[in-house]
């Protein structure tokens, strides 16, 4: 059995700039055998490798129905992602995966969906929203809530506008510190809940700063949504992705392999304590 760190060459076949510092790369495994056997679920991630630099955990935003072509959106955040941002069509990169448990898209089937994000946008959630749109008849109402500190933090403004035009979809935007250009809501994301018409049978999925997720999860629970139907995508340092290197531990959980998606019920005790 090869080392769990074995990576497989994949070629970049398309590159798209989303907004300043954020790029989406489409890639295919070079080795046909790898390409033919590779499968993933919505919300899983790969470890992407830049030659001579290292690996970064990046979620897969493309659709699991087409596992031969992988899309990853990468935001420049450090040295490795800085190098990755320069990847171009024809370049060969390393990919290993898929890892993590992914979003509970099966459990959510037939129910209304509440998606909450905060901050600089969340690639895992983009993949989830695209997944639902491609299977629109399988899901109920879709509520997309997004909160930012300042209007400048609202990346992908066009994308939200595009989502808003989809059937049975509502988009709610809010900011803590509005300027003159802002014509959406003001306040933290939980303040949007008063106009949220999601029934207690809804499934909520969220991604963003932990404080925001914790407050949002509590508010949703207070609206009658079961703690087992509220899901949080956690972020931790992930190096091995198989529960071996120790970095992503969140008390007894390895975020890489037990998560990154957890129910609020599973996490609420841990989230009360800082620095775990």
């Amino acid at each position, binding site marked *: *059995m*090869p*080392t*769990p*760190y*074995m*990576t*497989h*060459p994949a*070629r970049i076949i398309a590159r798209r700039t989303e907004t300043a510092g954020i790029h989406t790369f489409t890639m295919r495994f*070079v080795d046909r055998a790898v390409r033919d056997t590779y499968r993933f679920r919505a919300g899983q991630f790969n470890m992407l490798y830049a*030659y*001579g*630099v*290292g*690996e970064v955990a990046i979620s897969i935003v493309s659709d699991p129905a087409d596992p031969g072509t992988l899309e990853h959106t990468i935001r420049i*955040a*450090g040295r490795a*992602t800085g190098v990755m941002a320069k990847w171009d069509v*024809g*370049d*060969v990169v*390393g990919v290993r995966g898929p890892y993590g448990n992914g979003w509970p898209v099966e459990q959510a089937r037939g129910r209304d969906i509440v998606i909450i994000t905060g901050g600089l946008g969340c690639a895992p959630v983009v993949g989830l929203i695209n997944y639902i749109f491609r299977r629109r008849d399988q899901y109920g109402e879709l509520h997309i809530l997004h909160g930012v500190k300042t209007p400048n933090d609202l990346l992908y403004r066009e994308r939200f506008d595009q989502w808003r035009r989809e059937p049975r979809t509502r988009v709610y935007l809010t900011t803590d510190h509005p300027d003159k250009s802002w014509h959406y809501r003001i306040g933290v994301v939980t303040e949007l809940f008063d106009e949220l018409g999601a029934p207690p049978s809804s499934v909520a999925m969220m991604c963003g700063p932990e404080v925001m997720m914790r407050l949002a999860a509590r508010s949703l629970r207070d609206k009658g949504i079961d703690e087992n139907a509220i899901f949080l995508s956690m*972020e*931790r*340092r992930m*190096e*091995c992705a*198989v*529960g*071996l*290197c*120790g*970095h992503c*531990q969140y*008390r*007894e959980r*390895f975020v890489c392999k037990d998560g990154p998606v957890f129910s609020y019920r599973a996490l609420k*005790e841990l989230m009360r*304590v*800082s*620095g*775990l």
Partner: protein
Amino acid sequence: MIQTMHMPKAGLEHLITILRRDGYRVLGPVARDGAVAFDELRTSSDLPIGMREAQEAGRYRLVPGIAGEIFGVVNGAGSLKPYFFAPDETLLEVRRERRGFKVSEVAPAPPPHAFLGVRACDLAALAIQDRIFLHDHFRDTHYEVRRKDAFFVAVNCTRSAPTCFCVSMKTGPEATAGFDLSLTELPDGFVARSGSPAGEAMIVKLGLSPAPGDQEAAARARIDECAAGMRRRLDTSDLPRLLYDEAENPRWREVASRCLSCANCTMVCPTCFCHTVVDQEELDGNMSRRVRQWDSCFSLDHAHIHGINFRPKISDRYRQWLTHKLASWIDQFGSSGCVGCGRCITWCPVGIDLTEEVAAIRADAGKR
């Protein structure tokens, strides 16, 4: 029924010779730089004969022992860990090609190792590391290659260091599993037992004869006396719950005021497994190695990602280490991550004692 054999002290030389002839690199405790460490044994006189060690929290000295006593030194800073989970090793070589690169695994091909004088706590620690590196879902190639051919000669402890608490962790002082041969030292020889078919074969090769009943009883008495005399204790009752519930106990801040966050405890710990993989590129730019190195939850960037450090304070990191070792490890791997070897106590430069920390937290929780 496993038979108990007698081995004269000179049998040790014979054992080393046979192991070396069988192709093993033989390692055992060797006095070096004022401590014992596992090192290559060419002859039994390489062993720290007639020596003992004095250990306390934050202190370790080799001292004169009893003339002729071979395994008088309980342990040193080094465990078996580095021989299986290497502190620094290349996992992959990535060679640049005209378009792209080729990745190949660097599989180690070490000679088989035989370890002489392994203590029960260290064998227990190896069994714990097995559960991490030889998983249901994957097996770590590099660990497995070294693990499968190793030969272990355990030595049952007949004295403990003041820092030892294996009795509390139920890992010693007698080795009960994971060895090929076990020895209990008596003034005039050893009582030997086999723990595997390879050990059985070794007993035949050594030409040992059954131990007289009084020797067997004497060996038992020495081990029991060692266990009874062990003063350091760790109360493990209800441990995951206690540490989880006390995550905000003020003691974490107090211990953090003494802790240097130096990572010594994690380096000497025989079970700590955190590691990182870094790229080391050749100067010609055509090849990069993916190198695994030991890491520590005490390092500042262990839980750091772009702009967020999840455990920024020393109190966060000490709590992570101790809670993982004694509590969350049980949830993750089905056993405690601590074997009671006491190394983290001895080799802590400021003498922080985890048994004392747990006792303080337990006492404080009991008051509420």
